[in-house]
């Protein structure tokens, strides 16, 4: 295996009324290049994560490339998934041995369409989508199952919200019981970019590369009623395979408060600082938030404040799919 490290990370989150995806992404890509003094011509492989349903047009990733510049022709790939999976593909691509650097980016404008309807379309198209279940309601089914099985309460959920910087209002009505506003992620636009580099190239580019010492992703069956929603076996296996023990900082992609508890149970993060960035409860740009978790965790190694960190990303309804990336200083 070749040693691959995150050497730079940049991101932007917010609600954007004026700029389009390319205009959101361009300054983020500029910034991540500037951090390591690279240009697009220095990049071996480019991989992105975006969603056509979010953009409202097919093959929308081809125009997102305008933010990078694809001439002379570049080595490129795309996943219709969170950018964390684009990072996984880039890590695999760098293992081929012929390229030493990769740019990974993700962009999503969740506010342009109706995000709750868009996410209903990720479901089984025969028996689920025709009911148009929204992701908050589905998460609420999971939350209730989790609370009833573990004996935890809505106060435990509120405590998670509070520690992620959310203003908790226990008297507010349910969005979908037992979830209140503070248990749910905000609808956010955003873009993120990461530069990966191999071996000596990584050491040239930055002082403290965040070396990827383990990365794995696992998926469970789709039908919600056919799996145990109260735990995340896929996150557990991915964390075990990635070697998640002994991390100082973990950035978990838990859009809902109860999902952070389920992930903590699954990954076992004794003593680790969790989501110092505020996580997905603070900003949850679809397609981007998972890559942000890896970038935020890596930043703790890049800035010298942590020795071993974990970035997690999730995809699909109710934590169906989970990716864990463990990084360390050397």
């Amino acid at each position, binding site marked *: 295996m070749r040693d691959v490290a995150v050497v730079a990370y940049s991101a932007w989150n917010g609600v954007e009324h*004026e700029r389009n995806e390319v205009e959101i992404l361009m300054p983020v890509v500029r910034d991540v290049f500037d951090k390591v003094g690279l240009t697009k011509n220095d990049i071996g492989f480019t991989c992105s994560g975006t969603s056509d*349903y979010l953009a*409202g047009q097919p093959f929308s990733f081809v125009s997102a490339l305008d933010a990078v510049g694809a*001439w002379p022709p570049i080595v490129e790939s795309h996943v219709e998934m969170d950018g964390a999976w684009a990072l996984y593909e880039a890590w695999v691509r760098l293992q081929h041995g012929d390229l030493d650097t990769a740019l990974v980016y993700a962009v999503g404008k969740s506010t342009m*369409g109706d995000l709750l309807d868009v996410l209903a379309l990720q479901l089984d198209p025969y028996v689920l989508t025709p009911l148009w279940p929204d992701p908050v309601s589905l998460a609420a089914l999971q939350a209730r199952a989790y609370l009833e099985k573990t004996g935890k309460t809505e106060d435990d959920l509120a405590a998670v919200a509070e520690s992620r910087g959310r203003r908790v209002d226990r008297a507010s009505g349910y969005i979908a019981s037992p979830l209140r506003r503070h248990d749910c992620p905000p609808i956010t636009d955003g873009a993120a970019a990461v530069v990966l580099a191999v071996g000596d190239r990584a050491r040239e580019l930055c002082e403290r590369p965040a070396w990827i010492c383990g990365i794995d992703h696992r998926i469970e069956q789709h039908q919600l009623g056919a799996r145990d929603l109260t735990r995340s076996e896929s996150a557990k296996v991915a964390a075990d395979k990635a070697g998640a023990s002994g991390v100082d900082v973990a950035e978990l992609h838990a859009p809902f408060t109860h999902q952070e508890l389920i992930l903590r149970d699954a990954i076992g993060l004794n003593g680790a600082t969790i989501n110092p960035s505020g996580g997905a409860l603070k900003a949850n740009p679809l397609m981007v938030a998972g890559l942000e978790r890896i970038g935020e965790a890596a930043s703790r190694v890049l800035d010298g404040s942590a020795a071993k960190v974990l970035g997690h990303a999730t995809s699909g309804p109710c934590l169906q799919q989970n990716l864990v990336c463990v990084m360390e200083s050397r």
Partner: protein
Amino acid sequence: MSEDVTGIVVPIHLDYTYTPGVAASRFLRHIAEGNYVGQRCPKCKKVYVPPRGSCPTCGVPTDEEVELKQTGTITAFCIVNIPFAGQAVECPYVSATIQLDGADIGFYHLIQEIPYDQIHIGMRVEAVWKPREEWGTTTESIAHFKPTDA
């Protein structure tokens, strides 16, 4: 007993509030005033119209605005004879890419006021605008392009 249900139709409906972005918004506002304004790449100096805010070759922002003439050259065209769902123009019609004088890429518009069998690549054309009161932030403010008299 009736026959088996072997297929279902699942209707999809999604609503968006589409934003063209900063660069395209500026372009469309210029169109509403009767002007074609592109943007120049600071690196390779190419002029893009409509601008998208970035140079797709260099991957850098394009800020400098360049007002373009309303004459140009047909770089490719096709005669559309087959109707399709959502078609806005009656068949047959000619759709062409037109490179405006001073621009480095072509854009799509209609060619009219000439028998279609006389249209050719390299033909000089000019914009024909709709009446002033019909101008808006849309390229439909231009009715079509026609051959230049010169």
